[in-house]
């Protein structure tokens, strides 16, 4: 089977969507039917989940923006200079919000369209109604094409497998060497990945509409992933500061706990990859170690001057990280095994 790049797939999807839209427009001879092609094109340039999210936003905001724009148009005096001024304000607002809020962007853009069409022709509620219907049609075409024709979907399992593999590699790089890696904090790149996943969360959620993972569980998963990454970042940056102050015994213990955490991630990865191993993640060792060490060293907690106290912080972050890993496994395990 021929493997196409994503850009080729998007190109083919866009071409097919426009072709269907233009066919409908020509066949049924819609008045102002070109909105169908415009919407279909605008919504076929991303993954299916993202398209679905944007389709909902586009329809909702076309209705709202259209109504607000039309009311404004009729409420304002019929002065072309004033209309140009209003268009410029809405153009500014559209550009201002385009990168952060697609929802508001569509709202302002629809207002621009209302005033632009009023300026060069005519605008009324009848046209608004036609525009809304055409937008819905265009969105439906884009969604159907995106779903059935070279679908660009994100595989949530693959995404998580990639993420945890990266996490494991970073742990190995930091804790399995006498001196931790000092290149640009690898965990910061992990943070960038996490931000991307979170940014696409709604789109991903829509792709999982027919998946067993419920909406609540999906957001819980994101939350645990967020916490896990946070603890790992803190763990790494504090270890870089503290490792010089750890004695041999403490260093050996930290490495052992790091190995246990790596094992936990590997078991989690096995579960994601649907391997039939029935191993369970564990964090008892690290928790018990913290408790016993604190009891043994209770005298040194009388003051907080000793640098070696950082050892307990490192253990604490490992314990917290493992807690989050177990929570993720518990969430996903049921879905994968079913």
């Amino acid at each position: 089977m021929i493997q196409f790049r994503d850009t080729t797939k998007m190109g083919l999807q866009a071409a097919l969507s426009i072709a269907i839209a233009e066919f409908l427009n020509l066949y049924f001879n819609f008045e102002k039917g070109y909105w169908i092609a415009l919407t279909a094109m605008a919504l076929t340039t991303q993954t299916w989940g993202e398209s679905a999210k944007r389709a909902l936003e586009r329809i909702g905001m076309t209705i709202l923006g259209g109504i607000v724009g039309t009311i404004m148009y009729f409420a304002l005096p019929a002065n072309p200079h004033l209309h140009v001024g209003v268009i410029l304000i809405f153009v500014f607002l559209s550009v201002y919000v385009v990168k952060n809020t697609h929802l508001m962007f569509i709202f302002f853009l629809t207002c621009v369209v209302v005033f632009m069409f009023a300026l060069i022709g005519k605008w009324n509620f009848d046209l608004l109604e036609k525009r809304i219907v055409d937008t819905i049609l265009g969105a439906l075409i884009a969604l159907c094409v995106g779903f059935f024709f070279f679908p660009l979907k994100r595989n949530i399992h693959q995404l998580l497998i990639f993420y945890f593999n990266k996490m494991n590699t970073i742990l190995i790089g930091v804790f399995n060497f006498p001196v931790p890696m000092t290149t640009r904090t690898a965990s910061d790149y992990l943070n960038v990945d996490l931000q991307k996943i979170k940014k696409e969360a709604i789109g991903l959620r829509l792709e999982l509409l027919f998946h067993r993972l419920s909406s609540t569980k999906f957001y819980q998963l994101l939350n645990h992933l967020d916490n896990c990454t946070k603890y790992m970042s803190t763990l790494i940056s504090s270890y870089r500061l503290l490792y010089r102050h750890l004695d041999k015994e403490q260093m050996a213990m930290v490495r052992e706990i790091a190995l246990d955490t790596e094992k936990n991630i590997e078991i989690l990865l096995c579960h994601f990859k649907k391997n039939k191993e029935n191993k369970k993640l564990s964090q008892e060792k690290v928790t018990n170690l913290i408790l016993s060490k604190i009891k043994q060293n209770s005298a040194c907690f009388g003051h907080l001057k000793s640098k070696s106290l950082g050892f307990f912080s490192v253990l604490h972050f490992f314990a917290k990280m493992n807690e989050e890993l177990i929570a993720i496994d518990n969430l996903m395990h049921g879905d994968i095994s079913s």
Partner: protein
Amino acid sequence: MLISLRTFFWNTDPGYFQLKQGLKTVLAILISLWLLQNETLITKFMAAVASGFSMQGVIARTMISRIKHVIFFIFMYFTAFCLGLLVRDSPLGTAITLVIMGFLVNYIRRFGLEKSIAPVMAWLLCFLATILPFNHTAEAWAHIHGLGVGLLVSALVTIFIFPENYARLFMENTHRFFVELGRGVEAGRRYVLLIHKVDKSQFLNESVKIKKSLRELININQFMQHSQAFAGFEKRINKILLHQYALFNAYTMMIDAYRCLEQYNLSKQNCLQLGRLAAKFAEFFTMLDIKSDYVIKSVSPTPKNLAGLDIENISEVSQIMMLLNLKLSFDIFSQQAGSLLENDPI
């Protein structure tokens, strides 16, 4: 006043870049309309649309590559619009052209345009050329100079008006980062001193906002890191970024520790001691300054780490861990601050 106004706009959600882009777009449209003030409505309309659309999509970071982008995009937009005018009289021709263009504008994204909206803008201009209310195509060609003026004006505005100055932006961002961090540590000080009198959720909300702002500043600095604007200073830029990440993580750790502070009955002496230390760090970060050669200077001395906390009577593990983490976050602040001020040679 100007600085506080700029800080205000920085803090608005879409941020300074988008504000500038919005203003530049409106400016380009206004200049085009002014240049064509004696022309017909449809010529002005074409110029305004061309200006507005072609202002978007340039993503190059250096002046030379920005000029290359602008020239390529102008050519692309002009061709797309003319193509639309050529086929607009034939419904079938229009449909076929839009379909082929729809494929091409997505296909060419692989050539470094993944994040640019310029290809979609080209398709939109072609689409607009097919729907504009001309009586016949000859009439449209009579107004084509409107398109030329619009594209040219937007090219000049993109290149010459408010061009991005990455070196200055990096310095301003870095300075803002330290000020924000100082504000965050100061908020923590207020919270710890008035632990049972202030609203915890208010403190947490403020901390979340500060964290978000710090994260955005680091992201923008990271984005600019490989720009040629820093030629000769790469090592220093890299070092500053590394410290910013470490300080950000330490701040996150501090907030997490404060989050569970109210569960424990911390002695007045301990609260005062924590407050004193936080005050020193807040002042230190706020006073940090970055010079034009990316050297970091401070007028106040680097605060030393935590001492004098009395936790002899504390037996609960989680409380000990909370205090240890708090201590660690201040230790990291101190170590990173000291290292930042070392300013190694380039």
